């Protein structure tokens, strides 16, 4: 029996670009180049490694987002995933994390799965709660924030490095896993992989396909509301000195002046 892996990915504005908000206080996704969230590359990589270990596995990458989000799917396909699902619907604009988890959960159920793998957080919203929300909605174990992960005999095991302890976790499939950037460097797509990706199937679903009502998602269906977004004033220029042999002492003087010493 084939191991069905679904990897959730997000198309995000480039963090090195000038990210800002649109008039309706949603993230402006038009003015800044987008890409596959770097932290999701680790999820794709672990999916590929788990699939290699399994006798028979199939990796589906799944995203929710506008037309451009297909770029993120293509990148994951060029790394080696088998097929992709793109959930796209105008009514999704402004959906919050809780709403997004509804859409993803419905799509995951429709696709069929044994294992869901996500990155630790997106690089734009950075909440880091989506995998937990998916586990709650799907009613399956949450095995999250893993720095090491393996799957064998229908059981997922992994290491979760927390603030006060490092934990070994174990759960039966089906399960939702998330992996950190410590889980292992993500591969670069090969030329062959990039060419092959062009022929891999990308399915498009809308809200109707997932039996979700428009008022359950979008800005209106959101359970949170952004009142304002203000650009933080640039930090005022500080004093910069060149070390001529007394740099450490000058720095100490500054810290004394600020009452840190």
């Amino acid at each position, binding site marked *: 029996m084939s191991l069905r892996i679904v990897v959730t990915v997000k198309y995000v504005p480039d*963090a*090195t670009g000038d*990210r800002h*908000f649109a008039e309706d206080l949603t993230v402006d996704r038009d003015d800044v180049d987008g890409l596959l969230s770097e932290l999701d590359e680790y999820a794709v990589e672990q999916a590929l490694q788990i699939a290699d270990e399994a006798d028979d596995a199939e990796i589906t990458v799944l995203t929710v987002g506008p037309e451009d989000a297909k770029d993120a799917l293509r990148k994951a396909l060029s790394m080696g995933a088998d097929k992709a699902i793109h959930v796209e619907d105008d009514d999704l604009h402004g959906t919050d994390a*809780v709403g997004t*988890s509804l859409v993803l959960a419905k799509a995951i159920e429709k696709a069929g799965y044994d294992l869901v793998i996500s990155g*630790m957080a997106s*690089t734009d919203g*950075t*909440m*880091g*709660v989506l995998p*937990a*929300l998916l*586990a*709650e909605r799907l*009613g399956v*174990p*949450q*095995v*999250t*924030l893993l720095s090491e992960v393996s799957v064998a005999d229908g059981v997922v095991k992994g290491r979760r490095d*927390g*603030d*006060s*302890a*490092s*934990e*070994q*976790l*174990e*759960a039966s499939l089906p*399960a939702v896993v998330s992996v950190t*950037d410590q889980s292992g460097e993500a591969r670069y797509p090969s030329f062959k992989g990039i060419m092959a990706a062009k022929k891999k199937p990308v399915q498009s679903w809308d809200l109707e396909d997932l039996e979700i009502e428009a008022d359950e998602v979008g800005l209106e269906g959101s*359970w*949170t*509301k*952004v*009142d304002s*977004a*203000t*650009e*933080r004033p*640039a*930090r005022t220029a*500080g004093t*910069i*000195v*060149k*070390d001529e042999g007394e*740099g*450490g*002492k000058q*720095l*100490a003087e*500054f*810290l004394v002046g*600020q009452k*840190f*010493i």
Partner: protein
Amino acid sequence: MAEVLVYVDHVDGAVRKPTLELLTLARRLGDPVAVALGNGAANTAATLAEHGAVKVLTDEAAEYADYLVVPKVDALQAAVEVVSAAGSLAAVLVPSSAEAKEIAARLALRIGSGVITDAVDVEADDEGPVATQSVFAASYSTKTRVSKGTPVITVKPNSAPVEAAPAAGAVEALSVTFSAQATGTKVTGRTPRESTGRPELTEAAIVVSGGRGVNGSENFAIIEALADSLGAAVGASRAAVDAGWYPHTNQVGQTGKSVSPQLYIANGISGAIQHRAGMQTSKTIVAVNKDAEAPIFDLVDYGVVGDLFEVVPQLTEEIKTRKG
């Protein structure tokens, strides 16, 4: 008066500082009712009472340590039901640790409420609490409210002062029925982190960090020496962590910890967006870097262009001399 649930982060009964900061914020919204779970939960009561908890709901079941996240969600849900039945619940406040954020999100979904993560401030308003968040690598500040259900808000460390505000802190046993999912993910082993004797990175008033310029794990000794002279925590940039010079638990930045200390000292760190995302909200920023063009100098209150191997030891010596 409305009540506010505060989820207690503690280690065997020792309450961690961010929870005390939550109590300060909770008192703006109503009467804080603390929820402490797991081994030593009842021992948290005295500290919590000193800082404003009118009640402390506790449960010391073994499930909290033996299984991941879900038992704690079950318990918080039980606490929400207890408090809601007795009066009105204004909000649920949770520290922004990785685990507590997951707990908060699942709780919010279960009780049909919106969730806000990583708030840096929470204020009372006629229509409910308003949370301030710092987003896009701290280049924007947003004000957000929950528009459905009881607001569930996670708050970052160093977002409020710890204040003494003695209250009753009456301990009550919380009765929890675990859900079918509670035992889904078993914790089969746990290795506690070795204590370095230094303050916790996210909670520290001063953080001293090293980056690519430190150039080797053995050289982190000079970063640690400076940190120790100031009673500071030690941080590292992603470059230093990826090179294997310092543990990932000390990484400051987007994929590591986000810190907001009174003083941040960046040594040999260029200041890439990855790093800035984790430290830009620090009150005072100081940098030592040999490259005068390094973007970190755009952020600093005071910067020294120079060799960190000359400047940092001299600074450490000077601090030691002045502190006598």
